[in-house]
């Protein structure tokens, strides 16, 4: 079994957990990400980036469906992450697949804007909420 070195987040109304199953690396967010969670998210995404490169995964899935909100500071961490991927050689680059709940307007708007930074690297998939929030 391959272990991944990515910390969970469970503080300040935000829960985020990484998962690596069958060669697929994913992150699930639940709750709200405000400025208090910025540092934890930055650290987590930095580790995800390192692990994604180490594992050579073609894609990382990020599930926002149970997330109530991600504020601008925390969203910036995702932009930084995306820029890190863009800076890799094309053969090292991996895609980001976001699962969003389209009934949450902020998810639709923010993720679509994020995808404009690198449309080839970001894929948004709308799925019904898992009923978390």
């Amino acid at each position, binding site marked *: 079994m391959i272990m991944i070195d990515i910390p969970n987040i469970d503080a300040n109304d935000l829960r985020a957990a990484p998962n690596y199953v069958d060669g697929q690396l994913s992150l699930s967010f639940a709750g709200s990400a405000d400025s208090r969670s910025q540092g934890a998210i930055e650290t987590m995404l930095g580790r995800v980036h390192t692990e994604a490169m180490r594992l050579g995964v073609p894609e990382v899935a990020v599930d926002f469906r149970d997330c109530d909100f991600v*504020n*601008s500071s925390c969203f910036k961490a995702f932009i930084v992450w995306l820029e890190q991927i863009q800076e890799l050689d094309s053969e090292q680059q991996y895609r980001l697949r976001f699962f969003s709940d389209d009934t949450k307007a902020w998810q639709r708007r923010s993720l679509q*804007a994020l995808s404009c930074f690198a449309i080839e690297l970001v894929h948004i998939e709308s799925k019904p909420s898992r009923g978390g929030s």
Partner: protein
Amino acid sequence: MAVAEALPLSIVAQFRATTIERLGRIESAWGALTQRVGTAEGESELFHDVHTLKGEARLVGFADVVLITQRLEDLLVAARRRRYRVTEDVDVLVTMAIQFIRMLVRKRAGASQGGIDINGFLKQIDDVLAEWPRQSETPDASGATGARAGEGGKVSVAVRQRLGGAATQMFLELIMSDERPRLRRAWEILVGELAQLDAVPLMPLVRRHALSAKEVAAELGKEVDVVIEGPDAKVGIEVLDTIHAALLHTLRNAVDHGIEAPHVRAAHGKPRRGQILVNIRIDADAIVVTIEDDGGGIDTEALRRRAETLGLLSPEDASAAPDSTLIDLAFAPGFSVREAATTISGRGIGLDAVRAGIERLGGTISLESKRNVGANVSFQLPQSRRVIDVHRLPSTQPGVTFAVPTTWMVRAERGDDSIDPAIALGLRRAGASVSATLAHIVLARDGEEYPIVIGGSVTRVAAVRICPTSPDDGLEVVSVDDEKMLLIRPDAFFPSLRRSL
């Protein structure tokens, strides 16, 4: 074909460094204002920084940065009007716009812009702005709000919106009166006058660019006459900004890449002085600008080689590609025939952004060339400047169509206490003949839901705002081709309806 400013690389580097620093200040000031700890000085510096950034980007030819900065400025103006009490997702969008500009500015010279969706990002901002007042009011360099200098905007936004509201009411009367000709004429006059309030003269801008092109030619040791033809047309401010970016690139490109040096022209039997013709034409509701030069035309063989080098075409496809396919590549993100970025021309950024700006306004751009004869760039833009994506909702009253901004979701669902907007507006009496196809839908956004009855299936279209009203107004008239629709802002329309019941 590439961007064609002949600026020293040091100036571009300085622009990059200054802009990165400026963006840091903009981000800090925005954060302070939205967290209610900003000062008047900080606010003033914020607008000054954004305004200066836009101007400097224009000067160095970063058209894509100009476009995004313009929208950022629009967002900031709208936020200021709300005293920076903005929703979190607007805050995210402003932050993203700052990051987007930073990314564009940081891009290495010659680096590909592939994958960056400028048009899509502009649309995201436009969707937000569509919910807010959309007008020409822009901060000047001092940060003070007011009409743009020289753009004739003497009528306040509030007055324009009230006139838009009056036009909308008149449109309702027009429908209810069964299209009385005199009422229709009055309505058309009012809408025409409203369009003129936002219109600014185009010729001063064209003349400035013509002068600038001649200066660039002189610096390059070339001789050129720039001839301007056409009426002294007026256009909307957003159209003017787009024409500005397009002229900047095409004129300088014509001088740098098209017009040959005098001795080369003489060797080809051409007059030593080159000529660039800028023709402006008004076609129905569109403005058409054509820039034609008598230079060397586009070197399609160079395009062919570059396309192959960049992997855009396989060697087989490249050798078989017709000139028209190769010329189309000039609009591809990041495409430039120059391998070394000794000037900003080699940056490969610009024409794709110009096309994105034109297409975003519903316009088109085309490029034709004949080797040693010259090149011709033509772009067409609708004169109306406000484009908004809407769900088109057929009404239960035949001949009447509603629309709702696409920032609202439409669910096919029968809700409780559905409202028929046609009845609510008195456009149809209950029990009168109705559209054959009734549909129940729910308009939803951010926890708000409004069930309504409509008379057909929903489609998504881009509409032009012909008489913008205040975002607090529930109604406005928009147009798609020749069809006029009543745009409903559910969050303003339905609560006011309930209050009036």
